């Protein structure tokens, strides 16, 4: 019997004064609580010294704090969630990340992702652009959404296109969102979260969920997707004749569908769009029979007009076909 998942709005990418953020851990935890997050990962650049203070402050606010770090190199920024990795970022050239991650051995206690892969590098932001030549199979996650109001940024459109391309190639990599939160400023736009589907509330549950693809970046609406017993991130059984069931509802966090003009949900896949439905202010649920044996992955997108601009509002990681991935 599968345990039910709890979908927790999580900030997976944040900084404090322990690197180049302006918040002390206590402020970051208070701000995360105020923003309604249920979990927060501290990913300071190349140091983990902020972890103990953040953990203590997180407990005061009922926040799950996921230990993390951003390996900040000249050729890419690597998000690492979990135990402090024994990788010396100062020794990494463009071809060295793969072997370095390989040397970590079994990675069940770590999840590793590429941060903001298309943000401009030197002279704008050295190392921000992803230049490592390791196969994306070697990573667990891809930060498809970076920053505030992520769908307005062209770099994130490129990351989404890369992710779809990887999925089509059979690479299984979990899409995440991260604000890359450095300051306690008022949010100048729509804030995103990664809704992480966890069985429990231990930080390791979040790392396992990232490994398993149980994640849905969103501005607020919470999409759902399943085929039979297989949910987001799972693989459906060979021979399954179950339809794909999908939908979206308000999460209670962030943007509500009632403030979106023309909201709609689409089921997209390696075969293109399988279905699109208009949504009411409370969302809706739908199903699509699966007839084509060539279907290898399907995921949900929620779109609509907010503040006069058409936007991607939320998306799930895929449910995967029985073979091919």
């Amino acid at each position, binding site marked *: 019997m599968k345990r039910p998942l709890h979908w927790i709005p999580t900030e997976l990418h944040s900084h*404090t*004064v*322990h*690197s*180049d953020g302006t918040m002390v851990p206590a402020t970051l935890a208070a701000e995360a609580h105020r923003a309604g997050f249920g979990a927060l990962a501290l990913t*300071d*650049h*190349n*140091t983990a*010294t*902020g972890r103990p203070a953040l953990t203590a402050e997180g407990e005061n606010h009922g926040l799950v704090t996921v230990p993390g770090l951003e390996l*900040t190199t*000249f050729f890419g920024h690597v998000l690492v969630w979990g135990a402090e990795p024994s990788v*010396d970022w*100062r020794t990494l050239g463009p071809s060295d990340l793969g072997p370095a991650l390989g040397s970590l051995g079994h990675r069940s206690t770590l999840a590793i992702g590429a941060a903001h892969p*298309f943000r*401009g*590098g*030197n*002279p*704008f932001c*050295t*190392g921000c*652009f992803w230049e490592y030549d390791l196969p994306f199979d070697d990573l667990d996650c891809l930060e498809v959404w970076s920053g505030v109001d992520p769908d307005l940024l*062209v*770099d994130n459109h*490129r990351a989404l296109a890369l992710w779809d391309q990887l999925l089509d190639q059979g690479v299984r990599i979990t899409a995440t969102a991260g604000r890359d939160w450095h300051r306690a400023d008022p949010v100048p736009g729509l804030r995103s979260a990664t809704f992480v589907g966890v069985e429990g509330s231990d930080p390791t549950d979040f790392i396992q969920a990232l490994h398993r693809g149980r994640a849905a970046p969103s501005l607020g609406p919470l999409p759902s997707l399943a085929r039979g017993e297989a949910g987001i991130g799972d693989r459906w059984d060979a021979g399954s004749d179950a339809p794909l069931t999908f939908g979206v509802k308000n999460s209670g966090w962030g943007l509500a569908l009632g403030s979106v003009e023309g909201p709609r949900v689409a089921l997209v896949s390696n075969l293109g769009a399988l279905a699109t439905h208009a949504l009411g202010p409370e969302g809706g649920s739908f199903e699509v029979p699966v007839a084509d044996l060539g279907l290898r992955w399907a995921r949900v997108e929620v779109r609509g007009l907010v503040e006069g601009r058409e936007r991607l509002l939320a998306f799930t990681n895929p449910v995967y076909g029985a073979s091919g991935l």
Partner: protein
Amino acid sequence: MGEFLYRAEGRLFPETSRSHLEFRLFLDRDYRGLEIHFAYEPKLLEDPGAIAPLAAEGRQRFGLPDAPDPPFLQNLLTLSFDDARGFRGAAHRHPSDQTLFLGDQPSPGLEAGPVPRGIFRITLSVHAVVTEACTYRLTVRSLGETP
């Protein structure tokens, strides 16, 4: 003010970008802590005429045709430390004048504890030099010996 243990100065260039300079100094005693002062200048490149070609090159390289010229570009140098026992943390931050402490009350980003006798390694990570040149000064002082 503690005993001077080390001093270095130097000049960096755009071609120095994306490289690490390493200073290895031998500490012949156990120290309660160290005070490291690090400064570099200039920090900013604000001349629109100098920014334009760099930004144009960046736009082309990173496929960002619509990105406007930024109002400024900045040099970024950061320090990290290793003592004879291992990694002592990183100070990845933007100010171009920093005083950092290792010891019982370390600066954020750095690991607490004394600094043992042996090779002490300072890594100066040159993330970006966007100005014609950039000069730096680095000094290390003792915060007292371990009793």
